[in-house]
């Protein structure tokens, strides 16, 4: 089981699905960002799994996954800063109350 690519890919898909549900269903903006981190983790797991089962790609997969981690770190920084900037204005982290452009 731990020696088959399918097991890791299915694990990655399950993690991605949990992240998708969290992103679509949560009301709190920070919880939505956490769900995005889960989804990025799932993608990284798939990349590393492909690399681990293909000897020519092992080093390349780690490199790509490292890039994904770095971009995810940048995304988390800017995303949380945006949430904090909106929080200053609206005094709530709940996304369905960010309706001032509609009202």
């Amino acid at each position, binding site marked *: 089981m731990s020696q088959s690519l399918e097991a890791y890919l299915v694990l990655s*898909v399950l993690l991605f699905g949990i992240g998708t*549900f969290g992103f679509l269903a*949560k009301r709190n903006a920070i919880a939505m960002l956490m769900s995005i981190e889960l989804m990025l983790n799932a993608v990284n797991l798939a990349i590393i799994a492909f690399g681990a089962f293909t000897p020519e790609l092992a080093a390349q997969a780690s*490199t790509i996954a490292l890039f994904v981690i*770095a971009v995810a770190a940048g995304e988390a920084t800017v995303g949380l800063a945006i949430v904090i900037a909106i929080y200053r204005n609206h005094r709530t982290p709940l996304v369905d109350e960010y309706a001032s452009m509609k009202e």
Partner: protein
Amino acid sequence: MGLPETVPYLDWRWDDLVFLALAGVMLGSALLVVLGRDIIRSALWLILSFAGLAGIYGLLGSPFMAISQVLVYIGAIAVLILFAVMITASKRGPARLVFQRQWWAGAIAAILLVGLMITTILLTEWPHNGQVYAADAREIALTLFEDYLFAFEVLGVLLLAAVIGGLYLAKRDDDMPQTNNPRQAMRDEEERA
């Protein structure tokens, strides 16, 4: 005296047992992140989920990725998220409604997506099977600093831009109005009354 070849009574390989345990920890804590009501607990479960994934990276023969995962995700991103949670935490405790009203639509979409991708994975004949190849740190370094050197430098500039942008966005503006949110203004009024 070493361990027996397989797990006693179950007849599994030890790797399989470790894989199942780590997968269970990772998926279980990810579910708790999404389903939990208290956002601080969600953030703490998120750390456990990151740690489980780091273990799986170790099982996949890339200790380099496991260490990066611990350093970047647990050490930096989780702490950043915890700080943001504490800055935006409401004094009233967790919101009554944690999910959007149309959460079931999101659930259906996620389940459809998972089902589709799992069918695709299981129906595909994967050419490589049965052997995990360890990624050598020296090979990764050569790939990163020779083949992808330009991308690496661009990544450095991107991170710098992200830091400056994050600082600028989160900077406090003193001449801002108290709140632009009419519902929140009403709530503030009620609290004062």
